């Protein structure tokens, strides 16, 4: 269990995190979602006692992280990939962490095996790829077999195989009754991993919601209908209160009526249907909808040459 209450962090004039309250429960994978720069990492650092909040409070198992007696046995965290001395081997890195919390070298070697780094355990970590750094960070988080786990962008830099491995690992950890809190700026990744998401934008809580609810709430849910008598069907649907749009390809996008109602209505008219397909918004779209107003850094999609203003830095 992780509980944040009015958690706030200001860096000078910049409000990184603002009045954030949420609860992360055991037994679930809880996604922590937000655009880049929305305060996810800052929040995670405050949970770990690395940054102190400007206001508010955050606790793990009802205690401040600093007061834990055996931190590695209670909370494991991957905060950033490659937070390792480049000259130190993977095994030495884990060893120096293990020694602080009475963790055996047998456990260190076991975890190197689990994350697939046994063959490079004695190599200097500076030579590691980002993906290998992530694996080492995950091993460090799991060292003490903790009840609470934090992962900040764990799939960054991993290949598809690695991504699937992390996904299954997170779900497995949650199934064992652990609290799993994982940040990402990729909704699509969370859709496959998380049970629940905490969404923030510009440091503020936008929503704490289950993934299912998030999907069903989206206005992007509609039913696509094709019929040789589209115009007739459109009129009938609109009379029933649905919002119908005629698309360029001749199909109808129907909002405000589900496929059952549409099918039954069509039968009573009657018109022939060629397609009746409910369209779910992707979580990505649902997420974009929610965070639209709180994107810190906008990109542009222009590909042509830009004019001289601000060019050449």
């Amino acid at each position, binding site marked *: 269990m992780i509980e944040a209450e009015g958690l706030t962090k200001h860096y000078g004039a910049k409000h990184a995190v603002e009045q954030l309250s949420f609860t992360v*429960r*055991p*037994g*679930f994978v809880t996604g922590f979602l937000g655009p880049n720069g929305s305060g996810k990492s800052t929040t995670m*650092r405050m949970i*770990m*006692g*690395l*940054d*102190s909040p400007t206001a508010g409070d955050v606790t793990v198992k009802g205690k401040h*992280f*600093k007061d*834990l*007696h*055996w*931190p*590695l*046995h*209670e*909370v494991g*965290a991957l*905060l*950033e990939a*490659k*937070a*390792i*001395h*480049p*000259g*130190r*081997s993977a095994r*030495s*890195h884990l*060893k*120096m*962490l293990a*020694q*602080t*919390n*009475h963790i055996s070298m047998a456990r260190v070697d076991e975890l190197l095996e689990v994350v697939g780094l046994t063959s490079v355990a004695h190599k200097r970590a500076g030579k590691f790829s980002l993906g290998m750094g992530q694996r080492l960070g995950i091993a*460090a988080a799991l060292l003490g*077999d903790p*009840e609470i786990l934090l992962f900040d962008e764990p799939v960054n830099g991993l290949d598809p195989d690695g991504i699937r491995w992390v996904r299954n690992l997170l779900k497995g950890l*949650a*199934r*064992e*009754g*652990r609290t799993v809190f994982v940040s990402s700026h990729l909704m699509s990744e969370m*859709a*496959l991993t*998380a*049970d*629940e998401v905490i969404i923030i934008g510009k440091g503020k809580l936008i929503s704490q919601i*289950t*993934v*299912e609810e998030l999907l069903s709430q989206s206005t992007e849910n509609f039913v696509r209908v094709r019929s040789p008598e589209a115009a007739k069907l459109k009129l009938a649907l609109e009379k029933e209160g649905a919002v119908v749009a005629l698309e360029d390809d001749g199909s109808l996008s129907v909002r405000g009526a589900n496929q059952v109602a549409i099918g039954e209505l069509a039968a009573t008219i009657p018109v022939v249907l060629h397609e009746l397909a409910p369209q779910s918004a992707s979580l990505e779209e649902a997420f974009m909808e929610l965070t639209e107003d709180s994107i810190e850094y906008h990109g542009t999609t222009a590909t042509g040459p830009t004019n001289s203003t601000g060019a050449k830095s």
Partner: protein
Amino acid sequence: MSTVATPSEATPRTLPPGRYSFFDLVKSEWTKIRTVRSTMWTIGVTVVLGIGIGALVTAVTRAHWSGMNVGQRVSFDAPATSLVGMFIAQFAVGVLGVMVISAEYSTGTIRATLSSAPNRSKVFGAKVFVFGLLAFVVAEFTAFVAFFLGQFLLSAPATHATLSSPGAFRAVFGGALFVCVLGLIALGMGTIIRHTAGAISAFVAMLLILPIIVQVLPTQLSMDVRKFLPDRIGADIITTNGGVGQSFSPWMGMLVLALYAVGLLIIGNSMLERRDA
């Protein structure tokens, strides 16, 4: 996709009794310091140059002994000459002292460290203890070997000393202790500044630039301030043939230097406690 199933019961966990101790952190810091190359490099430089330069200078002195006049022979300081390599050693140990903490920041290891042991004063204490002990052992080893090798090379008719010669033991033991305490000053600077290059610059400036600045002060003021400078304190402890001017007594100087170290370490620790990691 994401069916919110009933979570299984949290696995009941029994934590070991007590909590992580200072000794656990000492073990961890020892692992840290001996598993990076910069440690081996700086210790290698300390030992090899610390002994080698002393040997070179004493050998050259012996070779030119017959050409030296009486005044030069009388004022010749055999222990200090054999310890001349400690001048280089002090920089190598200083660099190690800075890097013991600054590398944690530059590599991000500090966050892994504090995630395994969030009591920052305890971590810092362990770091100071491990580095201090290592610096002490390495510096004393270097100084004693340099002394004995140097005196051996200064064979008759050149003047040479034994450990029981006046001031000799103080020069050897104290000279090494001086280097060790300078290392702790560097560790304090590294903790306060947190950047390797910045902290090393400050350390080098303290030993090389500060004396120049003090020199251009008005004479009386310069004389009064000069004895407080670390480089003068080091010269005083290593010299056996009379003082080098208006100074503290050798051990009094060491006490002043130790107070600098303690002060910087206390400031460093409180900043470590207060700042975001």
